[in-house]
């Protein structure tokens, strides 16, 4: 990253008066959150004044808020002043020197997923000198995208190159003061992805952060903004199936999607952050705010997520169906094993006429894990002939885990049709025995049964992602039965 030190001194020089002693040349800021920290981050990123103001406003609002406690989660108190809010990409000396220094369990998982050695090193944070294949792949893709007029770049680059778009849409779906974690993210976000699909363009390829991750370390407060202009179409893939190590325990991302008239966005996630060990030690706290605004008529947004990682997941990808005839979809598989906890679901807010939404949620809990589905279907007065279908299934493995369902329905228009179906089942001893009796090993049998349970969601994933997700599910649940 290039720095214009003169400029920065101007901006943050004053902060020194307040005991802000971090050297401007250093790449990490001391732990703690204050207006100075935010100014430092903004300066580091060479942001315009309006964005710094936007961050500070979010911060000031955040100070008045409290951690949400309504979720069915048991969260240890988080000391927000003990966290460092900015660190530049790690230098090579910080990480493990070779794969020998990496947790063998992690390596085992990489092996099972069939990840090439070079990539294993990258994912585990080992310093790699060799240039990745994906870098050249990414370059080729960039050319192709540019030809189509698609903008796909790091968020910080978009702030510089396309300030008018960022200014127009940032916070227009998830306002800075929306909730505790969104406010925190708005104040201190470091980077993320920016996508703009121009009118009438069908994005020529699946957009995946996977190709980008070695170019920039997005860090713990990721910010993503995707805008699909009129009659455009884009499919975006986030995350990767390989478990990612991260030094930062707290992750609070914000994702905003805007679909204008006749536009369609398909957003697929595979989340596999470190879940902590078998005893519940360590693991990522993942507090994500994801929301889509179907702003135009006939627009469509589809969320598909496979959540297998993190110690705690707090996440409700939602759709605001403003445009007439707009469509919102949510397909989710969430797996919790050992001591993992997840409170996840969606909100479908029907405002426009003839809007439809579909929710298919599959929750799997094993060992001592706790999981909740939390969903809101809201039919506003104006939403004539709105329709929703919700199906919410839970699968329990063993008798120490839990599954909870919290569906909320608010219907203010009598022409609406809202359907809700829910089931809870245990992975049957009978099902398992049936497979064993046919000669299929327990591990493979569990894998087969669980993947069968999740089939409706997996078929929504892009092909190669679906195959990986299936494998991942099996690995995540290894040893969960018996």
């Amino acid at each position, binding site marked *: 990253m290039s720095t214009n030190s003169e400029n920065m001194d101007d901006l943050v020089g004053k902060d020194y008066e307040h005991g802000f002693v971090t050297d401007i040349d250093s790449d990490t800021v001391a732990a703690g959150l204050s207006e100075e920290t935010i100014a430092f981050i903004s300066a580091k990123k060479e942001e315009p004044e309006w964005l710094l103001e936007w961050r500070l406003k979010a911060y000031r609002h955040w100070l008045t808020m409290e951690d949400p406690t309504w979720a069915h989660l048991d969260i240890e108190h988080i000391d927000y002043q003990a966290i460092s809010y900015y660190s530049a990409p790690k230098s090579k000396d910080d990480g493990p020197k070779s794969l020998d220094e990496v947790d063998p369990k992690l390596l085992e998982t990489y092996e099972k997923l069939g990840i090439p050695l070079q990539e294993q090193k990258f994912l585990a944070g080992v310093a790699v000198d060799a240039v990745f294949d994906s870098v050249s792949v990414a370059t080729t893709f960039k050319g192709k995208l540019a030809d189509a007029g698609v903008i796909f770049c790091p968020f910080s680059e978009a702030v510089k190159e396309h300030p008018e778009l960022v200014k127009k849409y940032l916070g227009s779906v998830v306002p800075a003061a929306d909730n505790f974690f969104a406010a925190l993210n708005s104040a201190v976000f470091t980077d993320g992805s920016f996508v703009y699909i121009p009118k009438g363009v069908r994005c020529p390829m699946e957009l995946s952060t996977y190709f980008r991750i070695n170019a920039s370390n997005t860090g713990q407060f990721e910010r993503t903004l995707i805008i699909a202009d009129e009659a455009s179409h884009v499919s975006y893939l986030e995350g990767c199936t390989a478990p990612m190590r991260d030094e930062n325990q707290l992750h609070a991302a914000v994702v905003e999607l805007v679909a204008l008239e006749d536009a369609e966005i398909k957003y697929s996630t595979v989340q596999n952050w470190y879940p902590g060990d078998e005893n519940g030690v360590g693991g990522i706290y993942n507090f994500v705010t994801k929301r889509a605004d179907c702003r135009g008529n006939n627009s469509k947004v589809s969320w598909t997520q496979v959540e297998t990682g993190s110690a705690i997941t707090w996440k409700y990808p939602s759709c605001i169906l403003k445009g007439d005839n707009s469509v919102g979809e949510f397909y989710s598989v969430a797996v919790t094993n050992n001591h993992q906890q997840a409170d996840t679901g969606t909100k479908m807010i029907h405002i426009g006429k003839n809007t439809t939404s579909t929710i298919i949620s599959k929750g799997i809990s094993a060992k001592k894990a706790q999981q909740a589905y939390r969903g809101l279907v809201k039919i506003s007065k104006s939403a004539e002939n709105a329709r929703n279908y919700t199906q919410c299934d839970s699968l329990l493995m063993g008798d120490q885990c839990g599954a909870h369902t919290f569906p909320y329905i608010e219907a203010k228009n009598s022409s609406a049709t809202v359907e809700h179906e829910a089931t809870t089942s245990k992975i049957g001893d009978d099902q398992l025995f049936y497979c064993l*009796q046919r000669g299929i090993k327990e591990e493979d049998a569990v894998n*087969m049964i669980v993947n069968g349970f999740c089939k409706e969601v997996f078929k929504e994933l892009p092909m190669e992602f679906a195959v990986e997700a299936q494998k991942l599910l099996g690995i995540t649940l290894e040893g969960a039965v018996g």
Partner: protein
Amino acid sequence: MLNIQDLHAKVEDKEILKGLNLNIKAGEVHAIMGPNGSGKSTLANVLAGKNGYEVTKGSVEYDGKDLLELAPEERAWAGVFLAFQYPVEIPGVNNVYLLKAAVNAIRKNRGEQELDAVEFLSLVKEKMKLVKMKEDLLNRSVNEGFSGGEKKRNEIFQMAVLEPKLAILDETDSGLDIDALKIVSEGVNSLRNEERSIILVTHYQRLLDYIKPDYVHVLSNGKIIKSGGPELALELEEKGYDWIVETEAA
């Protein structure tokens, strides 16, 4: 082939099998009959190795091995097949996919080459004819939405594909109408050969009109109380189980 000696087994602390003896040679078909609660299905489940069935005494020798020492899947690899009384539904799992996984798991553990998609498909096509299996059932989820008859037919179809050495058919006739019973029985008959032993667990004599057993055993209160040829089944049909239970007790 199979030698059961003084077998005692418990389910949830209740003793169900109380000293069962049975000897089956290769190629023989034995029918086990008996009133409800006599322990017929328990015997089938103990032989297949189901969890929750505790063997407290006795031995089962199968093909020179101690069967009770083997895990359920190891028994399957060794050629033991159970046609379930109530085949379970497994939503989202393709019927033919499960079968392919089973075939290849068994082959792999026997040190044989796994079948590829083409080889497997031609095997399936050939065996489907035996039980007049409808093609659309292959690509549905395992047993999901199958009628009672279709479920039982699917069991025999699996048996045909897996070619076991010892097949235990647990009340395969229950819930079948006469046409389905005929089809299933023809399928089983076509699978009889000199090496394959079959145990037919059934409540009714009806099945034995279609599948002629070599021996018939009457199970009552956890023991075999009478053995004989096919004529024993007819006698039972005529006089009922009470007759034999009382005669033997006297």
